[in-house]
């Protein structure tokens, strides 16, 4: 966990690799000279066109809202179960079988079942995504809960530190690296599943749009949406996840 936080920042290297990718893309598109592989410039133009009509921002916002809802749901439930399993061998024994099963159910199966059982609703969509993510959160948080230092908990006990303070200043700080890892992996997984959920049973969101453009073989629009989506992920990583991580692990520096 520490290596993640302490990896030296090399922004120019990151920029170089991104620039290299764009150059290769452009060269390939130029050589292929085919509507199925548009140039980066053409994709940017399309991106701009979809943005000014308000269409792309709307679908992007809808997708983001679904991501946020499923993410919060999955983290809360997954963390609670993970802590319970990490603390108590009995709970762990009771739920471990179910956990292994849940980890191995394909995302598509959960999505189909949620839609079949709960209808083609927003709640079913968010539930389907959250259910896919919960098991991996549980596994990571359980690892953290098992590693909690009993000696530090004893300090809180002998000094009669209240449960709220014990939770926020003694217990949870030990889980933060694990929670951060779960959040990172969580976002990456949820992005992908949300799009599938939208493709299969929603009439809004990036996934729905991608499905539509797929029907028209509109590769330019598909890449434009992908680019916008990837941009949002990068911004979230830099502006939200990293600062949080730096704050939580500042004492290691």
């Amino acid at each position, binding site marked *: 966990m520490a290596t993640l936080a302490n990896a030296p920042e090399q922004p120019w290297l990151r920029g170089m690799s991104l620039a290299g990718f764009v150059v290769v893309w452009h060269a390939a598109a130029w050589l292929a000279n085919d509507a199925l592989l548009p140039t980066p410039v053409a994709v940017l133009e399309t991106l701009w066109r979809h943005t000014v009509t308000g269409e792309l921002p709307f679908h992007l916002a809808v997708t983001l809202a679904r991501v946020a809802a499923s993410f919060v749901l999955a983290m809360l439930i997954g963390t609670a179960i993970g802590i319970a399993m990490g603390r108590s061998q009995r709970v762990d024994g009771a739920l471990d079988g179910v956990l292994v099963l849940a980890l191995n159910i394909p995302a598509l199966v959960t999505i189909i079942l949620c839609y079949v059982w709960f209808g083609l609703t927003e709640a079913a969509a968010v539930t389907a995504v959250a259910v896919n993510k919960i098991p991996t959160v549980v596994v990571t948080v359980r690892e953290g809960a098992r590693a909690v230092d009993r000696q*530090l908990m*004893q*300090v809180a006990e*002998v*000094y009669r530190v209240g449960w709220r303070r014990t939770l926020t200043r003694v217990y949870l700080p030990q889980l933060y690296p694990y929670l951060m890892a779960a959040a990172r992996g969580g976002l990456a997984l949820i992005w992908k599943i949300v799009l599938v959920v939208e493709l299969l049973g929603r009439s809004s969101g990036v996934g729905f749009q991608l499905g539509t453009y797929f029907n028209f073989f509109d590769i330019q629009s598909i890449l434009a949406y992908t680019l916008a989506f990837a941009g949002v992920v990068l911004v979230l990583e830099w502006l939200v996840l990293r600062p949080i991580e730096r704050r939580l692990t500042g004492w290691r520096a």
Partner: protein
Amino acid sequence: MSALAVHVRRKHYRQGDTLALQDVRFRVDAGQFVALVGPSGAGKTSLLNIVAGLDRDFTGEVTVDGAATPMGVVFQSPRLMPWLSVLDNIRLVLPESAGDDPQAVRALLRELELEGFENAFPGRLSGGMQRRVGLARAFAVHPRLLLMDEPFVSLDAPLARRLRELLLSLWSRLEPTVLYVTHDLTEALTLADRVLFLSPRPGHIVLDETVPLPRPRDPGGARVAALHADLLARHPELLSGRAGGEAGRPAATGTHTGAGDPAREAPAA
């Protein structure tokens, strides 16, 4: 009434039937500094955990006077929260109703020569400083009872000596009752008003000795050395925890003793 009354009839180790402590019974007067000396494995830490209330899996009873106020505990390792600054580590154990007035804490840190390190994280401090923070944390709660488990072990001699002096100056000013666990008889004689000797497992108290020396005492000085020698002359088995005569032992139990145990068969004079 004594500040602390301990009677542990039996304490078993978590695994198996091995007895860790058997019939440990003593009282400590308010403000008294009592050292608990015994060989490793005698159950000293087990006993301290019982008194601290961390271990309730024993038969017997522990009565702490003024149990409404928290006790101070200094552990073998500093046990500081690495993600909290020095000041926040200490604030953590203060009652929330105490408000945000760090003046008393700052004064305590100054006394322990930690001024200027209030906002440092423990990972940046030396081992000796971390132990001083642990000491500050224990005194910050104004404990009536202070439990210490070999707090200065594995420090070099001059540093340990300095920390002992700091401890004594805080103790004489704030007058908590102290139970101080150590395996080092010289350290016990340097610090304590009274020394309790614990036998090897299953631990029980084999000797209860008052230390008549005036303070300050020099751990390398003649008086401590003379008392040390005198104790060993009177009780040659002491450092292995088996004092001759078994005077302090309330009940004889034969089941756990080896057959060829000379100290038990023929008590030294």
